[in-house]
């Protein structure tokens, strides 16, 4: 399969790989996917409680190049965004930016799920009602 240049770039130079301290109250962690399906994404955000801005984002992904690129791109987009704006990230934005082929759309869906799961983890920790996830 031919990968787009942007996928290859994110695969070769992934942004923001790493781990945030999940015990901290202002860190939200989203773990989505399943090993037997061939994709597991863990996406974490650190939120400035005062402003509601995402100050840091990290990921680790077990998956194909497109899954790695989708989560890497997601962390780039998340940094500096408000939680509200982060919720607006749509998987089709990722598909477009990375030029993912149809068989790889599920990677972008997983990245969107990971963002929402991380935000909900943060909200639950801080006694806020979780947003509805499809």
């Amino acid at each position: 399969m031919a990968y787009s240049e942007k996928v290859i770039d994110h695969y070769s130079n992934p942004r923001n790989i790493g781990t945030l301290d999940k015990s901290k109250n202002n860190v939200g962690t989203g773990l989505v996917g399943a090993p037997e399906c061939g994709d597991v994404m863990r996406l974490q955000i650190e939120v400035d409680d005062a402003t509601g801005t995402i100050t840091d984002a990290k990921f680790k992904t077990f998956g194909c190049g497109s899954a790695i690129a989708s989560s890497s791109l997601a962390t780039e987009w998340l940094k500096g965004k408000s939680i509200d704006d982060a919720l607006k990230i749509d998987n089709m934005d990722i598909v477009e930016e990375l030029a993912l082929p149809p068989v790889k759309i599920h990677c972008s869906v997983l990245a969107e799920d990971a963002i929402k799961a991380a935000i909900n983890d943060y909200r639950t920790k801080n006694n806020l009602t979780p947003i509805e996830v499809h």
Partner: protein
Amino acid sequence: MLKLPIYLDNNATTPVDPRVLQDMLPYFTDVFGNAASRNHPFGWKAEEAVDYAREQVAQVIGASEKEIIFTSGATESNNLAIKGVYEMYAEKGNHIITLTTEHKAVLDTCKHLEKMGADITYLSVKGDGMIDLDELEAAMKPTTILVSVMFANNEIGVIQPIKEIAAIAHKHGALFHTDATQAVGKVNTDVNEFGIDLLSYTAHKMYGPKGIGALYVRRKNPRVKVTAQMDGGGHERGMRSGTLNVPGIVGFGKACELARLEMNQDAARLSKMRDRLENSLLELEESYLNGNKEHRLPHCTNISFKYVEGEGLMMGVKDIAVSSGSACTSASLEPSYVLKALGLDDELAHSSLRFGLSRFSTDEEIDFAINQTKEAVTKLREMSPLWEMFKEGIDLKSIAWAEH
């Protein structure tokens, strides 16, 4: 200078040896006759070349030239052997025994016959890929007409106890067929020594051209017959009609001759190289060899790297052409059925690589393959949440994964 990418997928196909090509070339242009044309020198010369090649093709498996039926390749040979025996021996019975780890050319042929009324037993294999001889013995019935077990597996290289399998088949009055596609020219496959009644092989796995193969059909003790699956001019003693592929046959013959003469030295050199590759990669934590280590082909290895995803791994080893245990061209990942048959879970089956060396492989290429594979595995693990959990001692099975 290394030429990239490096080809290490020689269980899929091999390049044509230049010595083989050299012998083939005249038969496209100067000696282009139809081997079945009996009336002029063009036909006679073609026939002479086919006769010579038939001897070379027979010799590599210790057979007589009268026992060789040329086909388009091993898939056709397997079809002819299994369907041909099923039809020819219908009065005797309808039961065939094979393995779950056979090539699709055998499995799908058996499935086809099942629809026509055949009774097929698919024996599972042990964790190392080997057949359980007691299970085979127990599966034999009075109606068993054929046992078909591959000589060496195409994914893991495991060599089955062919002599013992043939003996069990014969004891119960059944014929024994082996798909020896991966084995001929790599290890000894002497049909008399092993008691083989029918044997499928092909040129393109042993430095010959694609599109030419053969089925060995025993003529003595017992005399075996197969019903033709291709009707026409009655070529190949009526068992396989169709104008003979003379250049292909000449190439197959030369490839068999070279294999016969060079097999031992190739095997000695390649197994050393393979062992070096394998041992280096098994130095990586949580990497596992698939299949029996002792009874196997000398030139290939199949290794799983836990906590690394197969397609991501393939992307990381982009300068070496290898095969993955994962069919990752579709959205639904299907791990190799052979590795699944060994009892591997989906994750390990997905994250496996098959390396197949050839007569033309060099030490420099192996060094490169070792480095690139190690780098890719290490890098992907650094970004794998599963690896991190493993390192923290978390049991991945204890997590409620949200399957999508």
